[in-house]
């Protein structure tokens, strides 16, 4: 049973590594922000899985909640800031 969560953690790590390509060479700023949000969402699931691996779910759940709130607030703040920018020819 513990082996299953170890395999799930490895799979989630591979899944997290894929959007880093979009963060490094996204054509626009919005692509990079979208990739950062996707990485944050998947990292949340990875933290929860690590809590199940080490059998300390009660501690890792609070970390996951704080991470979810921070990820959401960060994306909303960047979006509200980008609403104030105007297009200057090329984005």
């Amino acid at each position, binding site marked *: 049973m513990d082996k299953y969560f170890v395999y799930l953690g490895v799979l989630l790590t591979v899944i*997290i590594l894929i959007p880093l390509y979009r963060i490094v060479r996204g054509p626009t700023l919005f692509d990079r922000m979208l990739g950062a949000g996707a990485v944050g969402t998947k990292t*949340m699931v990875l933290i929860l899985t690590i809590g199940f691996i080490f059998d300390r779910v009660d501690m890792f759940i609070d970390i996951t909640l704080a991470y*979810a709130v921070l990820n959401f607030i960060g994306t909303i703040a960047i979006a509200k800031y980008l609403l104030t920018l105007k297009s200057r020819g090329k984005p």
Partner: protein
Amino acid sequence: MTFQFLVANVVVTAGAFFLLVGSIGLVRLPDFYTRAHATGKSDTLGVILVTLGLVIHEGLTLNSAKIALILAFVGLTNPTATHALTRAAIRFGLKPWFRKDDAEGKEG
């Protein structure tokens, strides 16, 4: 392995599959809006399925109630964040992608 753990494993694996599909769509699709489409819906469904499977695995405790709270929070906030980012892109003036040989596609 009891029936409860088997159901939990199947649901969690389905959620990991949807997370993988969201990641591949974020890399392979041609435009910001299509990428937002991929990561806004697939990731939300994947996180919801993984947390639902962990709730099934945990049983009926305080921890599973907290994980269900995470489920509800992600289901509310992840589409909201994607929508806010897409609205900022539209106000910014980011052009959608068209096919090259399309009649109205000059951008390429």
